[in-house]
């Protein structure tokens, strides 16, 4: 009993009128159905920012919420509220793991201890680079994203990429800067990648508005064997094509052959900037690929490109599919330029279906092109080996996002 009285005295002696007034204020607001955030704001406005610690507000809010009426504090010292940082690290990590990565990054920034326990894992990352900032998107819908000023963007990016548990499905370096100046951006990324303690674990790697030769800068820092898909595209094709600088395409491919990362990919998706230069490369440079995609539009030198494709389809030991977007040629003409052996099953000039048998290689390909739903555009031209795994070419869709 003495203990109880002592505790009571100990707790109550410092209770001031203002504390009672604030508790009363909280009780009134709980009764009105006000949210705890709103009550917090109101108290700051009415009584000043430091009028009550959040944990106290939280305690009293839920006391009244759950039916308590009395304003007297009946807590004993041993029963004081526990804080987040009272929990062991593994439980804090469990809590943080429930948050989207942009908020995990925020929490890691506000506390040294939280930084230590925060798992910055994500499966998707689109690094959108502008002149003075960077946007990191962690979802394809861009809902979970964070803006970073350039002075600390690369450090933050490094933190994420350096996580030993990181397993990305897709990593995208996406430059919104003018392509003529992107070499500087590529070098900045290279400097950051050089500081990593590990190679980046990603299944697919995309670059947008970077040069093809920049693959030589990025690929050495990606984990070989894990990397399966490379996509090099230009969302602002006009700008990419206006660049006079010739792409050392053949030399780049020759240097890429020396990289395990390149030799172990199975899918390559090219921008339309490159098909013309691609034909200067021997087809056996691409024999490790199962799928080869050309972006469009492809508007000229059809005979040269299609002859290269025929040789690739005929001789490549691993090829399962070839796909081209916006091949500006009628379906029968495409077929006849690939091979006179092709049997057209059906065509309405632009769309159609055909069979291409290669007797010596014992391979059969299905060739098809569909109309889009609005019938204003034809879909991709798809050359698919009979028996190819279905996940490589989902019906009418790109396997690349």
């Amino acid at each position: 009993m003495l203990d109880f009285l002592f505790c009571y005295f100990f707790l109550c002696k410092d209770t001031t009128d203002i504390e009672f007034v604030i508790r009363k204020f909280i009780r009134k607001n709980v009764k009105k159905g006000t949210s705890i955030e709103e009550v917090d704001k109101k108290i700051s406005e009415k009584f000043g920012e430091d009028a009550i610690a959040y944990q106290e507000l939280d305690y009293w809010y839920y006391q009244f919420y759950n039916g308590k009426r009395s304003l007297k504090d009946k807590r004993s010292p041993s029963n004081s509220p526990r804080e987040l940082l009272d929990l062991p690290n593994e439980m804090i990590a469990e809590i943080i793991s429930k948050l989207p990565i942009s908020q995990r990054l925020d929490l890691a920034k506000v506390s040294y201890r939280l930084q230590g326990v925060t798992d910055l894992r994500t499966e998707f990352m689109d690094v959108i680079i502008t002149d003075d900032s960077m946007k990191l998107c962690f979802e394809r819908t861009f809902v979970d994203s964070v803006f970073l000023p350039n002075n600390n963007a690369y450090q933050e990016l490094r933190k994420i990429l350096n996580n030993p548990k990181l397993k990305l499905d897709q990593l995208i370096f996406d430059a919104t800067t003018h392509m003529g100046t992107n070499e500087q951006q590529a070098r900045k990324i290279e400097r950051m990648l050089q500081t990593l303690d590990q190679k980046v674990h990603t299944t697919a790697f995309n670059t947008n508005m970077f040069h093809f030769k920049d693959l030589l800068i990025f690929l050495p820092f990606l984990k070989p064997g894990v990397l399966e898909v490379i996509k090099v595209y230009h969302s602002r094709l006009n700008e990419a094509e206006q660049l006079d600088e010739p792409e050392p395409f053949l030399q780049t491919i020759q240097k890429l052959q020396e990289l395990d990362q390149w030799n172990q990919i199975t899918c390559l998706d090219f921008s339309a900037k490159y098909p013309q230069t691609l034909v200067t490369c021997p087809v056996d440079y691409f024999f490790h690929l199962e799928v080869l995609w050309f972006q469009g539009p492809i508007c000229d030198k059809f005979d040269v490109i299609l002859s290269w494709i025929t040789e690739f389809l005929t001789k490549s030991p691993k090829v399962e599919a070839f796909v081209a977007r916006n091949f500006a040629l009628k379906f029968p003409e495409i077929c006849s330029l690939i091979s006179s052996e092709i049997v057209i099953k059906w065509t309405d000039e632009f769309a159609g279906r055909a069979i291409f048998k290669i007797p010596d290689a014992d391979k059969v390909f299905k060739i098809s092109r569909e109309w889009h739903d609005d019938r204003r555009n034809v879909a991709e031209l798809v050359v698919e080996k009979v028996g190819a795994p279905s996940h490589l070419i989902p019906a009418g869709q790109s396997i690349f996002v």
Partner: protein
Amino acid sequence: MSVENAPVVDVDEAAIPVEKKMYYRFESNDKKEFRVSELAIQQSETLNRLVEAMGYTSEDVENKPAIAIENIDGKTLKLVFQWCEHHKGEAIPVDDGSVPKIVEIPEFDAKLMDIDNGLLFKLIWAADYLNIVQLLNVSCKKVANMAQGKTPAQLRRVYLLPSDEEDEAAKRAAQEAQDPRAREVEEEFEERKRQGGNSFF
């Protein structure tokens, strides 16, 4: 045929299979006792293993002392067992190691967790101690949700996190404990920063 004339059949009550529910008795560290169904206990890997190892019969459950859970108070344990009873028979989720973990908080759980942070943290601690996977998931999610849309200053207030200065002191202390030269390196870095370079990159 009237009821009076109906043939009388002796029923051997013992022969009828009766589904017997066993209720275990647990006691919190403040001597509050709880009766919990066998099925509800299965939500807790720790308690489930414990009762399996004890091999109590229904008589033992009544006659022997309640099983003491010494690390958890009655208020928290009440919430834990309410949750277990409500979710009894449900499959226990398997952790696939993915991050972020997608967790939905059902209405019952949301209502159960309309409690102050102090009690909520005790609930998390209890869920972890008793290895109740889904309760740990939803309670952690509830705490995580408090971070939604908060500025760094608000995060510090809500989670009672230390200030930048306190944090820096903790960081230095941790670095020094790890490597006595860390402080020198840190100072050199700060000095370089002062001399010009804004950023390493």
